[in-house]
């Protein structure tokens, strides 16, 4: 309990004094996670819309697979990305291992199924509602997808935020592919793991509180920008 209070006080102090190391780690956390979020959303949202409107033979299998991949173990993803990016791997020549880019790649792989799966539920419901209208209007597949994505944008924001929540708290995969290198790939979660390992619980907790605060702040900011929860809007 003492550690918690001490952690809270330390977190408060680190934030108030704008501790240089904390700022660097927090900004890197945000940079990696937001980059992964943007890339994952660009992949997952059109994929979700396509799965809702397009009928093809293995559609149900793909949806089931996507749902199953929501529980993809991050450590396994980290390992696979590590193998692909390591010097002897197929993409070793790119020299991406132990860089923020490798961490972004791992996070994208982890959160694409989550965002696509949650988004698919919303888009599928909207497609059921719009189906007759859009078919009768003779819209093209591209127009259908654009309409569904636009009109379910607030629900899709929630899907993306779920992805953000998963990515910002991710530690296993990015520890493996990032290496937790000081001033290079250290982020809040890997720093927490490191401080906990050193027995420095108060600082680890402080970083944890900063992480929680950051996650809440980003969520609130995105909600405010997306104007969700406004009366009479979807």
């Amino acid at each position, binding site marked *: 309990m003492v550690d918690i209070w001490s952690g809270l006080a330390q977190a408060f102090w680190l934030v108030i004094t704008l501790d240089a190391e904390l700022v660097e780690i927090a900004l890197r956390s945000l940079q990696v996670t937001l980059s992964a979020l943007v890339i994952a959303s660009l992949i997952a949202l059109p994929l979700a819309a396509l799965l809702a409107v397009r009928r093809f033979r293995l559609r149900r299998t793909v949806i089931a697979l996507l749902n199953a991949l929501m529980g993809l173990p991050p450590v396994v993803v980290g390992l696979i990305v590590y193998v692909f990016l390591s010097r002897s791997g197929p993409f070793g020549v790119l020299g991406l291992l132990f860089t923020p880019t490798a961490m972004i790649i791992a996070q994208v792989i982890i959160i694409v199924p989550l965002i696509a799966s949650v988004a698919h539920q919303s888009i599928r419901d*909207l497609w059921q*509602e*719009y189906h*007759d*209208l859009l*078919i*009768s*209007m*003779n*819209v093209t597949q591209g*127009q259908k997808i654009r*309409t569904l994505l636009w*009109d*379910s944008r607030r629900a899709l924001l929630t899907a993306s935020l779920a992805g953000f929540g998963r990515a910002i708290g991710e530690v296993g995969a990015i520890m493996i592919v990032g290496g937790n290198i000081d001033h290079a790939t250290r982020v809040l979660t890997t720093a927490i793991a490191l401080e906990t390992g050193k027995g420095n619980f108060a600082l680890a907790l402080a970083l944890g509180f900063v992480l929680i605060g950051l996650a809440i702040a980003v969520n609130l900011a995105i909600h405010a920008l997306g104007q969700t929860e406004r009366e*009479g*809007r*979807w």
Partner: protein
Amino acid sequence: MQLFPVRLTDARATRRGKTLVGPVDLVLGGQGTTVVIGPNGAGKTTFLRMLHGTARLGSGRIDWHCGTEEARHHQCFVFQQPVMLRRTVLQNLVYPLRLRGVARAEAEARARDWAAKVGLSEMLDRQAPVLSGGERQKLALARAMITAPQLLFLDEPCASLDGRAMREIEEHLQEARAAGMRLILSTHDMGQARRLADEVLFLLHGKVHEHAPAEHFFTHPATAQARAFLNGDIVE
């Protein structure tokens, strides 16, 4: 571009191997208003959808004068339960025009004109799904008519509307007809059928039992079932 005449030859609408409507052999000309009537389950909605191309044609043919693909671009459908895009009234009206590549400024100007015509000018910024039933139906009608289709399908457009809303909708339909738009609508309301119809299609058990000019149908129905239906009897 001339849609009519449209010829249905042994046309059947099917779902999961079951025939819902048909076989239908029919020729529809290009003038006026065709009212499709019949008891519940007669296949009115499916017939309209089959003609429009949104219900699966299991067998037979539907031949539009200008070809099926071209015909689809010149027709619109208003559903019994109007589907509202989760957008404002203005955006709902702009949507079909933008799909056809009309510039945003022009699309908005035309949308405002149509909103004024159907009495929705005060509601342009309101979210369409929260409108009342009558307002939604008027919006659906304006959204369908804004692209000036040659043919408009309406599936029970006034079901569950009160008398005033029904009168307004009917006035818009009469205006559209006078402007040369071809209307094909289904209804349960015999009063409405008498007011709007130039010709009547009487459907029963998925088949066209009678196809006749309205005046003739309402005064001299050819079949016993049609006579019973007009008398308000239960038709089976």
